[in-house]
């Protein structure tokens, strides 16, 4: 309980404290650079991401094409910047979607004794599937669009969040300040948001960071397996999927997006670890 209420004091300077730790500080800087690169892609990218140039197919990295060109002569660096936009926003959408589903399920299971059993059963059942298999099945069923990838991954990650939310809610539910609100006749939805949700924001934030990292990997994995977003849309995952065919002649096509994924995921992991240590030491054990 102390761990749940502690973040309050630390919150105003949470960023400063993250920066103050070498690992999460580096992670944060890397994330900011990548996010800026994605946001500013139209201004930074030296070429249009779709600009074909058959004459310059499969060119190795050089000063004109920093990361080389792909099979259609498109600039890999420029495509990567645009791909970052899709990859990051898909992952972010997964975080938002899974958070909404996970929070609703977790609050239901944690706050209402009668709902705990059925909801927890459902959550446990969903968690018995290996992540990527469940995602593949869902995308296969729904069709390979960006929205469906978000939904599929959202469903895959929601149970993790639901568990964290449920566990925290079970603790908060019994606290006197919740009883005080009930004694005042405060409506339950208000209690859930004002008293419960506000006090479990930290574990949700920590989980959200990890889900972000996982979603980037999973999106790439789905694309690589050919059940993800259409290969025409540049994402780091689709770039790798396409580049795989030229792995021997032009390794850079998949190497650079691959590196982008690894670096982003590592950075998120570092930030997530930092957040977890700062906000919720108890979580450290069960991940």
């Amino acid at each position, binding site marked *: *309980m102390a761990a749940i*209420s502690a973040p309050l004091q630390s919150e105003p300077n949470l960023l400063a404290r993250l920066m103050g730790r070498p690992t999460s500080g580096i992670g944060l800087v890397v994330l900011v650079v990548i996010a800026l690169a994605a946001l500013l892609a139209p201004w930074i990218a030296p070429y249009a991401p779709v600009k074909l140039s058959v004459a310059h197919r499969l060119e190795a990295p050089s000063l004109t094409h920093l990361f080389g060109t792909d099979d259609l002569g498109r600039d890999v660096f420029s495509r990567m910047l645009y791909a970052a936009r899709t990859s990051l926003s898909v992952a972010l959408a997964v975080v938002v979607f899974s958070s909404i589903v996970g929070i609703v399920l977790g609050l239901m299971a944690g706050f209402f004794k009668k709902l705990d059993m059925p909801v927890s059963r459902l959550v446990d059942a969903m968690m018995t599937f290996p992540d990527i298999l469940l995602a593949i099945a869902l995308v296969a069923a729904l069709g390979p669009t960006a929205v469906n990838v978000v939904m599929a991954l959202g469903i895959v990650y929601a149970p993790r969040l639901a568990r964290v939310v449920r566990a925290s809610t079970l603790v908060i539910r019994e606290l*006197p*300040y919740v*009883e*005080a609100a009930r004694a*005042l006749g*405060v409506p339950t939805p208000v209690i859930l948001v004002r008293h419960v949700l506000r006090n479990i924001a930290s574990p949700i934030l920590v989980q959200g960071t990890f889900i972000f990292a996982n979603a980037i990997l999973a999106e790439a994995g789905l694309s690589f397996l050919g059940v993800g977003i259409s290969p025409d849309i540049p994402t780091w995952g689709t770039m790798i999927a396409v580049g795989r065919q030229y792995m021997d002649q032009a390794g850079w096509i998949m190497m650079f997006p691959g590196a982008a994924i690894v670096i982003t995921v590592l950075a998120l992991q570092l930030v997530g670890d930092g957040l977890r240590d700062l906000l919720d030491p108890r979580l450290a054990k069960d991940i």
Partner: protein
Amino acid sequence: MSAVTEIDRRIETKPLLVVEGLTKHFPARNGRIVHAVEDVSFTVKRGSTVGLVGESGSGKTTAGRVLLRLTEPTSGKALFDGVDLFSLSTAEMRAYRRKLQIVFQDPFSSLNPRLRVSAILGEALDACGFPRGRKRKERIAELLTLVGLSPDHALRYPHEFSGGQRQRIGIARALAVEPEFVVADEPVSALDVSVQAQVLNLLGELQKRLGLTLLFIAHDLSVVEYLCDEVVVMYLGRVMERGPSKLVYAAPRHPYTRALLASAPVPDPTRRRTHVALTGDIASPIAPPSGCVFRTRCPEAIAACAEIVPPTVEIDGGHHVACIRHDGRA
């Protein structure tokens, strides 16, 4: 005869709260049950302070929570101004909520760490339909002043206060809705000894000034003596003895009450008290002893104590005791 006078007195003094046969069981592992509160009856007169006393685990908090319908009773009645609170639907109960409030034991977990004091009190004001706007700001300032805090404390967060100050905020929240009945659940036991008296004085003063009816929970009889008109002594979910403080303190009739008094610091050393030390631990509420629940620790227990649950008898104006040997015989 005693039944008639009992009824007469009730009509005369119009009790605000009449608790009858209150029982609360919690499910425990392996289908067993925790007998947290068992057949508890007592009366709280309007404008009086009643102390609910007993060791840890005797069911005091549970009794208070059930009375406020923070947890549902297993059986029993709680007539509040003649209306059985337990018969009300959730929606009907909502209308009663503001009449009954509670001050919690732990000053740290009783305030939401994310809310400013103004929001904490504001929630209570919302609950009683107090309008927003400047009036509200004034009301919050007034409430803070009432409990001995300053109006500029409204913009602070709970962690900026000491335990005693937090408890004052908790009291202000309870009073914000102008309740008739307040349960104070060991409101000072988690505080530094140096501030305990201040908060107790504040409660006593507010009780008089606002004409509150107070159910004051404590594990220590000495704290209650100073505040309470009547006292209810609980052990393992049951009432052992209850009655006007004067009678109970001067002539405790139950061995448990006597033991509690003996173990409490005596403010007046000239007062004679039988010294019976309370040994051993409170029995398990999952498997309470047969007959008298206190018998496993009672220095006066006899074989018969295991046979029947001692009936509660009135021995003197409002002084009730549940012990088959209350008159020293049997």
